[in-house]
């Protein structure tokens, strides 16, 4: 198998409402992919399933070279296996400094006793500083992250994801509430990240998706409606009907 993540025939319903309907989806090892779709198309539920927050009623979710099923793993195990997730609202630990946030995310042993015995090494400090520079927060390391602006929090969260060194990054509406300059920086970060790993971006904003310049998957009513380049899918009549035409 060449795909990093393979979702096939997945369905899930909440109180009779089919949020995901026989969805199949694949992504390769170093690929940038945008998922678009109208509200209620199942974009967030899709991420919930991959990260273990929601269990599907049927279907398979296979991961990595050895095709292990993600359905039997807990959220934290999936995260350790290499799936990182960024939520729509920036969720950083506001009571803690940028440094602490990044340090917590660094790829290290996560067992309680190992963390208890953990002592910062010079390399770790250097790695945190490097990440902070990458996300443009190099001079803010010791500020409480609650004091950062909305855009800075979004970057911090992306930085925390990068610190986790995931093989697949799921990003939910990264550009929401950002200024134009901030969006450009975010686009660069995501494109850079996609050189070494798979990145899936859920986004509403067509301009942002165009700037990402990647393959696009259109979701509608819980399944894939169209897939291809942005120009290709925007010419698709069905897509125009359900999404763009409105």
């Amino acid at each position, binding site marked *: 198998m060449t795909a990093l993540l393979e979702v096939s025939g997945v369905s899930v319903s909440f109180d009779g409402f089919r949020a995901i309907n026989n969805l199949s989806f694949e992504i390769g090892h170093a690929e940038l992919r945008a998922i678009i779709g109208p509200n209620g198309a199942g974009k967030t539920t899709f991420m919930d399933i991959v*990260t273990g927050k929601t269990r599907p009623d049927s279907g398979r979710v296979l991961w990595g070279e050895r095709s292990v099923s993600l359905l039997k793993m807990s959220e934290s195990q999936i995260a350790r296996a290499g799936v990182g997730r960024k939520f729509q609202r920036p969720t950083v*630990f506001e009571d803690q400094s940028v440094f602490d946030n990044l340090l917590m995310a660094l790829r290290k042993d996560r067992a309680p006793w190992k963390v208890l015995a953990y002592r910062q090494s010079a390399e770790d400090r250097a790695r945190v500083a490097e990440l902070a520079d990458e996300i443009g927060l190099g001079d803010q390391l010791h500020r409480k992250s609650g004091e950062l602006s909305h855009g800075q929090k979004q970057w911090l969260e992306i930085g*925390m994801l990068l610190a986790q060194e995931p093989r697949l990054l799921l990003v939910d509406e990264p550009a929401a509430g950002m200024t134009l300059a901030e969006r450009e920086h975010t686009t660069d970060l995501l494109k850079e990240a996609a050189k070494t790993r798979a990145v899936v971006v859920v986004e509403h904003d067509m301009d942002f998706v165009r700037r990402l310049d990647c393959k696009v998957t259109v979701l509608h009513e819980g399944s894939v409606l169209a897939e291809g380049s942005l120009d290709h899918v925007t010419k698709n009549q069905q897509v125009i009907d359900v999404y763009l035409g409105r």
Partner: protein
Amino acid sequence: MKDSLFARNPSVLIFLGLLAAFVAAVTVLGEGVGMGLISTSFVKTLGKTLCLCLIAIAMDLVWGYTGILSLGHFAFFGLGGYMIGMWLMYARTETIVAASLAQAEIPPTPQEIRDAIGTQIFGVVGGSDFPAIWAFAHSLPLQLALVVLVPGLLALVFGWLAFRSRVTGVYLSILTQAMTLALSLYLFQNDSGLRGNNGLSGLQNIPGAADVPQSLLSIWFFWGSAAALALGYVIAAFVVSGKFGSVIRGIRDDEARVRFLGYSVESYKLFVFTLTAVIAGIAGALYYPQAGIINPAEMAPIASIYLAVWVAIGGRGRLYGAVIGAGVVSLLSTWFTGGQVPDLPLGIYTIKWVDWWQVLLGLGFVLVTLFAPKGIGGLFDLVSGRRAPARHGADLGPDTGSFREKEAEQ
């Protein structure tokens, strides 16, 4: 070393210094080895207060730092007390019984001595046989091990069941409260094996130290309590200061996010819950020999609620806050309920503080929660210049909890 525990937490050294000064002062002024200006009973009160400060630290770890509002930590405290109480009572009764049987013409067999001890201890609940749980009561090292093991294992099993099912928030509080209530009701029964509502008594008499006056014993226990508090404080500071502290505070603020970072939230909660139960057990084992008696009422849910009130008044999420809260409130409580505070005549009604203290405490709790959510410990922020912006309830940032740049930089 830049990275050492004390360098990162100057409050630890300050706390240890103040504690040492306090111990020295009480020792010099106390009756046992000093000038006798402080009565033995007050030395005991102070020693007990130090134990309460220790369990408050445990509560702060589990509630203030990890966000688990446990209303059951006094159950662990009581269990620690019972475990040490069993040995104290057994060994003390043994010396008395052996002395009286030694008068007999035929020397008593070990079995006769054991039966006589059983009659002495369990006569009050109409029994004379040792229940199975007293199997190790003859041995101090084994009972000391149980002080740690019994609360620790109970917390481990209870926590594993509760956290694994993802019980959180108020539901977990109710569950912990149910646990302590069930335990206390069970111990109230005469056939529970721990003398029902009589509890264990005479614990102030230390076996093998019959010649040592209480004034000296009290100061020994005071020292022991202070040492345990100091050690507990340093351990707690170590736990909350490093990356582990970051993770548990993360769990308190946003559990789901920590999970998606790859940390197994349940293991962390279980670790903290069990560790604090052990600390609570040790605090209880030091408390009850100073109190002299333990009975199941000590484990009633209200005790654990008081614990939460102390920590809230002292200031959650900072260790010295918990110590201050427990120390100040429990000493005030002793003072008010001891009938030493003069009544307040209001003409038509006289306020008797023994009755009105709880109203005052409740009012204090409400006022602190409303107007000083950081508690007494928050006062130290004024000194060190740390402050939160006055928002007057308005959400100033783009997101809850955010500061405006200008404000944050002041």
